[in-house]
């Protein structure tokens, strides 16, 4: 293991992985509700606006998934370099997904 690859603590790793997954789910949900209006209506009916439900969904998923991943202790083998790569990949997928979807559709 090279010197600059260091293990970060379990909670930070778990919530880092959770952030990676949440960002992709955020993009998928944005595309899904644009593609399927009944989903948007259903989300609007859960709060006063579909965007509010979307915001609550993202925040709840981030914290709930982070806590769940931490409990499963499944991130013990993940190092910081992997997490950085996953973060960049997830940003690339989610940003290009949103920009591409709303530009071409």
């Amino acid at each position, binding site marked *: 293991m090279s010197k600059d690859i260091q293990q970060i603590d379990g909670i930070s790793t778990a919530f880092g992985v959770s952030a990676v997954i949440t960002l992709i789910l*955020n993009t998928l949900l944005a595309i899904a509700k644009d593609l399927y209006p009944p989903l948007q209506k259903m989300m609007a009916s859960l709060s006063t606006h579909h965007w509010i439900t979307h915001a609550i969904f993202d925040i709840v998923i981030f914290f709930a998934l982070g806590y769940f991943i931490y409990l499963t202790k499944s991130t013990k083998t993940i190092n910081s370099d992997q997490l950085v790569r996953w973060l960049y990949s997830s940003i690339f997928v989610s940003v290009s997904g949103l920009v591409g979807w709303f530009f071409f559709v």
Partner: protein
Amino acid sequence: MLSDFLIFAHPAFGVLAILATTWLLVEAMNANATNGFRLRKAAWSVAFFMVLALLFGGQWYVVYYPIEKAVILKGPWPFAHNFFMEVKEHLFFIPLILSLYLPIIVSRNKLETNLGARKIVITICSIIIGLSLFIEGAGAIINEGAKISYKQTNMQGEQK
């Protein structure tokens, strides 16, 4: 009146979040035994300002934006809504989630000795700054889209 307050408070807190992220980036790049408290304070500031940007922007978007949206769509810049607002309203959640993660990683790791944690914080700060600047720019385009449409409507009204 409340609409005017919200429309200025939302990007103002966005800018404060960008400034706090830049502060955190600099502290993380120079992490040492003496700046642990400042690192934590900067990380919490990013999350705090980003949540305020969400609350003020969200309130304006849900309550006041539908009227402006209709105006933009009738004007010469419909892409201000169809592209920029659609992307902005969902892209915002990326810096939001990352800003909520910052206090966790900064509070639980010693950045002066843990190069891995430092690398993650620097990565996240860079992403937040880049995306937030795009979001601020998108906000300006949406505002311009509405302004141009209002001007056009006024000119048509005067001609009649």
